[in-house]
């Protein structure tokens, strides 16, 4: 497994609150551009792993009304940029929390389990 460990501490690149972890060979600049251009967002965590792209965002207080729309918008934009990846975008703080956990752990063996879990969490409705 070819891994490029590219730990971006965030502050140097985009905004203070945008955190990207890249375990794949994909270019992450695009995702940063998309997220940075959306002023409805307060913060975000991004995780690239193999064919997966998981984006957990936090919307600004009054943009939370449009959470679903924000998710759709970002997903659409990212799909154009990364047509080959399975993209998961969520404005749910639990998803962001879990994604962040995966990043902090830096344990790549268990990443796919973690990603599966995140996706199953999202599938549950209500």
């Amino acid at each position, binding site marked *: 497994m070819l891994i490029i460990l590219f730990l971006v501490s965030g502050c140097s690149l985009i905004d203070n609150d945008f955190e990207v972890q890249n375990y794949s060979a994909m270019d992450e600049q695009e995702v940063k551009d998309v997220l940075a251009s959306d002023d409805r967002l307060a913060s975000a965590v991004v995780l690239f792993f193999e064919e997966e792209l998981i984006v957990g965002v936090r919307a600004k207080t009054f943009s939370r009304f449009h959470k679903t729309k924000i998710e759709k918008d970002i997903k659409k934009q990212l799909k154009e940029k990364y047509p080959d990846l399975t993209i998961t975008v969520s404005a*749910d*703080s*639990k*998803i962001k*929390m879990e994604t962040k956990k995966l990043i902090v752990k830096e344990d790549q063996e268990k990443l796919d389990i973690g990603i599966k*879990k995140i996706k199953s*969490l*999202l599938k*549950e*409705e*209500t």
Partner: protein
Amino acid sequence: MNEKKYAALEKEISPKTPYLRNCIKAFLVGGTICLIGQFVALFYMTYFDFTERTSSNPTVSTMIFFAMLLTGFGFYKKIGQIGGAGGSVPITGFSNAVVSAAIEHKSEGYVLGVGGNMFKLAGSVILFGVFSAFVVALIKTILVKLGVVSW
């Protein structure tokens, strides 16, 4: 003295309802209950596998449990007296209605008393909730079928 004249006199002499004070108290009490609910939701999100969406179910159950204890120990009626709607509008008020009726009618036995009267107060909420949900969903389904709106 006719009814109208007396009604006017009654209005004049009875203490006025303190609208503003009641609203402020309802706001603070109701807001606090929701704030506690948010902490409970955060707890479920942090320590269990619940998302913001799915955490609402366990949160509601937990709040109902809290209200059961408060009702049983005789505190909820104080919250209700101070908070007014702030105590009865949150789901805890629903729980208070169920629990207070259940323990009140315990003296008539568990089947006829508790079973028969538990939803004496809260039953109407379920009835109107279910029926309005039925009507709303029916209208929406028909509108979707007609192509006026989409899901």
